[in-house]
């Protein structure tokens, strides 16, 4: 105890003299792209920082340089006042910089204990590999770290390969690795995407403890509410440049959005909620049931209506989305579209019936990242573009793609650029564009703005509203409540695999929705 206090004290004393990390005039160029344009950053011990900015603003580039994954084109990195401009991954770890990557960067085939505990020994040997492995220490380090994040630390769990664990558990393991060593700085890139509220709360208490011990934290997040919960400084970046440093608890969403985008965005509802639903609904789902997924789900969607469906992770919302898209089979119940019973036993059947489904995870379920934008967009309508000899008609394909790119305001050098070269928001627009190309009657979006910045969110919402305006029925599955409240006419809350309640979206607030979801611990909101 006393040694811990002493350590904290020395850490505090030192912090007054030199910041833990500084960057001076950091530039990064990728070919012709100038990703960082002279960024100066100062990170003090024992404090939290939030890197805020739209996708493509240079946040990830900055983090890659600090964590040693990439070298800057020019500029300096100082750690403890000493110049360390030549960081590689091992050098950054030696300097006490731990990174929790957005993709988690866990080795899928290694065990929980190895993923957490190996780094320490690798760093001790300065990356040299021909050294004996201290098996007991790997386990010991892992046990300590697992305890910190609240995961079990028994032998069976620790020797499980990480790939066999659910995504939320993996995210906690990645965090455990970040806090396993006595880091001076822990960088966390979107660390809470898979976590439940309760786990987030626990994480925040872990963060507070780290801060008390003198560790600095640097977050990258799109979740402003969580940033406020953690508190600290917000570093706003736009277009590769440092814009402003703010106090995250003192600044409201509208102001932060303005700083990030340079534009004032609508944060209210896009249009008045419609209460008068058509006499003959577009979609009628009756008593739909899927084994352990969901039970007795009946709902309707009118033409031009935007319906929101939310619920906790295990509420059956994901399963329902997959069933409507023809990806998951159902046991009982009927689905009618435009008054006629339709068959959605396969994704192809659902597309034929006029249902378009934009999946949750665009990277693994949706897009062919290395393929051109054109190929991604025409993917679902390839039959329609068949020309002579059954080959794809290039001209038509290009026209369709160009129209979509223009309609959805996708920012891309040209239509043959690979999707992986686009920012997250633009990737998501390509995915939506593909499904709009099928001329669907019903558009189902699952988590349409996960990992998308505010500016792109706005653009995606406008697309959704446009489509609804033209008479398309839209269902949004999401746990982003503000997004549902802004866009939907009605919101259905699922709980324990059934529909719990239906609310008119303009007469309900987050609190009531959370209550209906049965969420026990909720992160205090922005309000």
């Amino acid at each position, binding site marked *: 105890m006393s040694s811990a206090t002493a350590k904290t004290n020395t850490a505090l004393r030192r912090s007054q003299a030199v910041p833990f990390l500084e960057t001076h005039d950091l530039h990064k160029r990728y070919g012709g792209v100038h990703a960082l344009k002279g960024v100066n950053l100062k990170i003090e011990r024992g404090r939290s920082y939030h890197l805020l900015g739209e996708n493509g603003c240079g946040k990830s580039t900055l983090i890659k340089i600090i964590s040693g*994954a990439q070298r800057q084109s020019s500029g300096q990195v100082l750690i403890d006042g000493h110049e360390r401009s030549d960081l*590689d*991954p*091992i050098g950054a*770890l030696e300097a006490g910089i731990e990174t929790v*990557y957005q993709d988690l*960067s866990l*080795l*899928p*085939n*290694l065990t929980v204990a190895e993923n957490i505990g*190996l*780094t320490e*020994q*690798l*760093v001790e*040997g300065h*990356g*040299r*590999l*021909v*050294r*004996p*492995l201290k*098996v007991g220490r790997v386990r010991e380090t892992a046990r300590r770290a697992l305890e910190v994040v*609240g*995961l*079990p630390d028994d032998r*069976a*769990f620790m*020797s*499980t*390969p990480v*790939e*066999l*664990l*659910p*995504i*939320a*558990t993996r995210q*906690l393991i990645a965090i455990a690795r970040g806090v396993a060593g006595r880091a001076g700085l822990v960088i966390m890139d979107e660390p809470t995407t*898979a*976590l*439940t*509220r*309760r*786990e987030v*709360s*626990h994480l*925040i*208490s872990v963060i507070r403890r780290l801060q008390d011990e003198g560790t600095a934290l640097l977050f990258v997040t799109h979740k402003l509410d969580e940033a406020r*919960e953690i508190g600290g400084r917000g570093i706003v970046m736009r277009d590769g440049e440092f814009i402003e440093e703010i106090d995250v608890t003192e600044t409201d969403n509208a102001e932060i959005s303005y700083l990030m985008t340079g534009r004032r965005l609508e944060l209210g509802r896009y249009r008045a909620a419609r209460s008068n639903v058509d006499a003959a609904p577009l979609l009628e789902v009756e008593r739909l049931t899927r084994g352990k997924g969901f039970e007795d789900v009946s709902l309707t969607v009118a033409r031009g209506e935007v319906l929101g469906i939310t619920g906790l*992770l295990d509420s059956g919302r994901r399963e329902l989305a997959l069933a409507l898209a023809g990806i998951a089979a159902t046991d009982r119940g009927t689905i009618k579209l435009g008054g006629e019973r339709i068959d959605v036993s396969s994704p192809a059947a659902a597309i034929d019936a006029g249902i378009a489904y934009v999946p949750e995870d665009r990277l693994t379920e949706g897009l062919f990242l290395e393929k051109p934008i054109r190929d991604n967009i025409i993917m679902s309508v390839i039959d329609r573009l068949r020309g002579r000899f059954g080959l794809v008609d290039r001209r038509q394909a290009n026209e369709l793609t160009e129209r979509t790119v223009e309609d959805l305001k996708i920012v891309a050098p040209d239509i043959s650029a690979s999707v992986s070269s686009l920012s997250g928001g633009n990737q998501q627009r390509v995915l939506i564009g593909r499904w709009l190309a099928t001329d669907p009657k019903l558009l189902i979006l699952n988590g349409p703005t996960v990992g998308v910045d505010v500016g792109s969110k706005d653009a995606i919402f406008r697309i959704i509203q446009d489509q609804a305006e033209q008479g398309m029925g839209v269902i949004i599955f999401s746990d982003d409540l503000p997004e549902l409240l802004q866009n939907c006419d009605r919101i259905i809350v699922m709980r324990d695999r059934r529909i719990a309640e239906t609310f008119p979206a303009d007469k309900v607030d987050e*609190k009531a929705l959370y209550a209906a979801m049965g969420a*026990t*611990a*909720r*992160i*205090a*909101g922005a309000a």
Partner: protein
Amino acid sequence: MTTMSEATTDAPAAGEDAMSRSTLYKGRAARWMVRHPAVFPFVLLVLIGLVVGTINPFFWQLANLFDILRAAVVPGLLALGVLVVLAAGGLDVSFTAIAALVMYPVAVFVSGSAPDLGIAPILLMGAVAGGLLGTVNGILVNVLKAPALIITIGTQYAFRGLLLTFVGTALFTNIPASMTRFGQLALFRGTTQSGLNVALPAFVLVFLAAAVVTWLVLNRTLIGRAIYAVGGSSDIAARLGYNVSRVHLFVFAWAGMLAGVAGIMHVTANRLANPFDLAGTELSVIAAVILGGARITGGTGTVLGTVMGTLVITLINNVLILVGVPSNWQTAILGAFILLAGLFYARLDRLAAGR
């Protein structure tokens, strides 16, 4: 609204959402199997032994069991090399060519220039020569950044061409005395009731030693873990500070070294060096490793599993004759076993993942 302080107080109970015991421990038996894949080939060994032994009791005679062990040495050494490369996410098919390119010149050189050389320096020569040839594979993989399979198909032809063009094509029978002696050295010698002489050849120990050392490297050194890390995902491993190109160099050198030793052992066991030997056995060696639980996609596999897998394949190749299965059928049965293993492990992975 629930306040933050309440949220944090119940936080220690966080292990109930995604971390609930039921999700974490689903498919626990399957996970245990995933970590101990040697169980599967072991069960196969026992089953084959029981079936064949019941039909023809000769199976259980020491002479036969020793023969099987003896036959497992060369494929076993090669399989250990394949395992190490596979664990790092690559696939090596040049090992038979390396073995041949090492064994033939070494035998010719020693009997011509240093006929009195002992077995230890000969083995060392084989190991070093094989290791160097393997390093060539490693360098090519690092420099060309092409899949290891393609590169080792290339070097397989290159090495073999080198041997046949520049070294020789003729059968070489004038084996150095120390190799002949080592081939006949027995750990155990006895006479059966039927008056048959049986001997457990000492060179089985070479396989055993190679297995133990490979196990130590994979499980008790940092590079061993780095090998699996790179096999899991070389991009992520690089980001975490593992030196990926050094791992590549190491695994191919290790596989080459084992292939070199295997070549020497092949000559020792057969008392002749045939430059055309071993070619074409690559797939059955790889099959042995897969049968032992390594995934063809890399990042997995154990030494014990590989040893067991090798024994299964050797067993099938050697004992079916005892129960009167014609040799053409043996090939088909071998194929069936490999299919069975493929099915089993695919199913196991799904079970373990709770899908």
